[in-house]
């Protein structure tokens, strides 16, 4: 079941990339997808059945524009710091605690953090993320978590948990 789901995802990706239904392309795509699933299908972390769950897909579609909005804000923030003559930065590495449990959700959280305002994930240990922050605000783990991860966790929980 897992292998079939992975095959469908990879094959769909192939069709999108080649954008052609010529028999040679389709057969090559099927062979390559099957080979990929056979060789490295085991390391795929996500439970494939979840990729076809409409509720999760809906929240994913909500999440993408939400994330892009914060990415744009992040860029304006960093761009402002970069062109400001005094270079107003106050960097440091802080620690946040996440309540997400699956590896896939943590991966997305870490990548979302890296893409948004002044924060860059350095390492994950269990449920703790070490985050490099270009302008540290707040004093303890709780405040940092609220600042950095608070806006993503509720939606990510609906998608991946």
């Amino acid at each position, binding site marked *: 079941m897992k292998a079939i789901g992975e095959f469908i995802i990879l094959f769909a990706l192939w069709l999108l990339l080649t954008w052609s239904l010529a028999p040679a392309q389709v057969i090559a795509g099927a062979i390559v997808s099957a080979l990929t699933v056979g060789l490295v299908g085991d390391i795929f972390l996500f439970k494939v059945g979840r990729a076809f769950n409409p509720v999760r897909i809906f929240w994913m579609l909500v999440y993408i524009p939400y994330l892009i909005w914060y990415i744009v804000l992040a860029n304006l923030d960093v761009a402002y710091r*970069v062109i400001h003559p005094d270079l107003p930065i106050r960097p440091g590495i*802080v*620690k946040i605690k996440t309540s997400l449990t699956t590896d896939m959700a943590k991966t997305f959280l870490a990548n979302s953090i890296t*893409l948004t305002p002044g924060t860059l994930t350095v390492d994950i240990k269990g449920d703790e993320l070490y985050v490099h922050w270009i302008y540290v605000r707040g004093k303890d783990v709780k405040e940092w978590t609220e600042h950095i991860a608070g806006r993503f966790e509720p939606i990510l929980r609906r998608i991946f948990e």
Partner: protein
Amino acid sequence: MFWDTVGYIFIVVGVVFDLLGCVGLVRLPDVYNRLQAATKCVTLGTAFLLFGVFFIYGFSALGIKALLCALFVLISSPTGAHALARGSHKGGVKLWEGSVIDLYAEDSENK
């Protein structure tokens, strides 16, 4: 015609962000801060360029490829930055002297 204009606007915005990212790369003081500029401005700039190509070419072989490339850049760029930051820290690269806190180093020493 309308979508061409939208596409060109996206490309111009993307190039501006790419430029700002490069300025950041030169001006910011240490590896970690420079990665901030590299992951944010440059990722978004590149994604905007690719979105612009998608708007101009629409649902054709080229447009869809550009869209998928934007998706791959958005996934792989933060992952690469994460690996670089972690590797630098483990390799002993110090934070800039103006940094206020380094819990990662403190926690690593205590364990």
